[in-house]
């Protein structure tokens, strides 16, 4: 893979910039809460994105230095290759006459490029074929009209006009480009600004010829070309700016949600920690987050020596008003329960492994028991199918 840096100096500058950008993020992460690190990272990334957006908008407005490129000339020194880029103006007799004139100059090859001008809307709605057929028909008519079939060739392109011209450079290597438009853009015509964009990109002479129905070719003066360039550049820059603004809004919303989530989760953790600390300070028994237990028939031997049904845990410690999760595996084939009528508790424990919620609002010590008829002795003795709930 090719290095994106042009020199060691650039790579060094990039590393320094990266370190400078990371320092505040690392400091915020080390010294402040997590959300602050997220905010600082977002600010650093935002500054970078703003700088890139600014540069991109300058480029779109034509305020950046642009380097024009061109491949070597192809053919002998007397040969000349002219690329003509047109769409709806191919119907104009004046343009066809100009092509014919060029082709009649000895050693001149002409290539007609017809961008089909497929909008993203047409791509989405499947209207591509119609536009391609239209461009193909215009090219065919023009080639038939001009003749000189060994010297004049052409093709249509689905690509954006500027990209299409760039692609043509790979195969045709023109020595001159003629961009043919109307004074103002029409639905099936090239934009007048195209000539200016082509001039900025390619190191070959570019002529902008304007054809209006029935009239001869005209060339816009420098002021008109500058106006086309300014208006189109300004429009493109504003469009890009709006997109960047929308993206910034979405990112800001995502960032704020993330910060809110982090803050909320940190608050929950802090609250739980402070509650645990307060409970510890008050000498209250610790409360488990989830209590795992089972109900097993003939699980525990009684004082008389016989085995009785039992819950494996019969003492529960809960906080008043706070739900307590119980994961109970009832291995018996019948249901059992944890019932305290005066506390409003009646958990029916179904056979199998299920999760239940135990909630008691008033502090106190409550005797619970199983209301389903099973082991009668065990139902009357705490530690078997009965026990205590301590609420603090």
């Amino acid at each position: 893979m090719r290095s994106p840096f042009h020199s060691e100096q650039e790579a060094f500058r990039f590393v320094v910039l990266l370190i400078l950008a990371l320092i505040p993020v690392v400091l915020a992460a080390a010294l402040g809460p997590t959300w602050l690190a997220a905010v600082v990272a977002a600010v650093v990334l935002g500054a970078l994105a703003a700088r890139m957006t600014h540069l991109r908008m300058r480029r779109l407005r034509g305020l950046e230095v642009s380097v024009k490129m061109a491949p070597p000339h192809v053919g002998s020194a007397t040969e000349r290759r002219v690329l003509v880029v047109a769409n709806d103006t191919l119907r104009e007799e004046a343009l066809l006459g100009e092509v014919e004139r060029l082709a009649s100059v000895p050693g001149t090859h002409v290539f007609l490029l017809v961008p089909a001008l497929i909008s993203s809307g047409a791509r989405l709605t499947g209207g591509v074929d119609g536009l391609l057929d239209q461009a193909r028909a215009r090219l065919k008519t023009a080639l038939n009209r001009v003749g000189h079939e060994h010297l004049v060739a052409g093709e249509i392109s689905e690509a954006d006009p500027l990209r299409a011209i760039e692609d043509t450079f790979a195969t045709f290597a023109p020595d001159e480009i003629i961009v043919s438009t109307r004074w103002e853009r029409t639905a099936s015509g090239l934009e007048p600004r195209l000539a200016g964009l082509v001039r900025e990109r390619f190191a070959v002479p570019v002529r902008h010829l304007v054809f209006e129905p029935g009239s001869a070719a005209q060339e816009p003066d420098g002021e008109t070309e500058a106006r086309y360039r300014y208006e189109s550049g300004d429009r493109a820059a504003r469009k890009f700016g709006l997109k960047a603004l929308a993206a910034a809004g979405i990112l800001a919303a995502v960032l704020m949600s993330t910060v809110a989530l982090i803050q909320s989760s940190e608050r929950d953790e802090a609250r739980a920690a402070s509650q645990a600390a307060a409970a510890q300070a008050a000498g209250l028994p610790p409360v488990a987050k989830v209590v795992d237990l089972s109900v097993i028939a003939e699980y525990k031997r009684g004082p008389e020596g016989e085995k009785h049904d039992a819950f494996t845990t019969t003492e529960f410690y809960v906080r008043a008003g706070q739900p307590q999760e119980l994961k109970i595996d009832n291995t018996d084939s019948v249901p059992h329960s944890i019932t305290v009528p005066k506390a409003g508790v009646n958990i029916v424990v179904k056979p199998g492994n299920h999760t239940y919620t135990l909630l008691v609002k008033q502090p106190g010590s409550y005797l619970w028991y199983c209301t389903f008829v099973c082991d009668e002795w065990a139902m009357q003795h705490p530690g078997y199918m009965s026990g205590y709930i301590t609420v603090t």
Partner: protein
Amino acid sequence: MLVEHPDEATGLAIASGLRFAGYAVGVCPGPRGHGQCPLTGPAGCAPAHDADLVVCSLGYEHEAAREVLRELRTRYPDTPLVVEVPSNIDADLQELLDGCKRLPAPATPEQVVVAVQSLYGQPSKESPAGA
């Protein structure tokens, strides 16, 4: 080959001469009227980096043009330079031009092509010289 020339038409004429001599070309108007040249900033300049040879015709009465030449000498010391120079050059410019192929300004496209060919040689038809 990279051609740095502030005048669009002359730059294109030199580019055309070089193209017909078999070289791929890039043409840059230089820093004048465009604020800072990327070559003198942190972004760098890809065409200058990729160039096998640079033709500098920026006119060196401006400090910005000298800065470009200075950066080219510093960043790409192995890239040959053909520089159009005025008749009266000061000591600072004299030092900058040390080791460059000099052409008296204004040079014709033909003179530039000859100078490039003397430094770089004729490009082969199979592998044209890159910009």
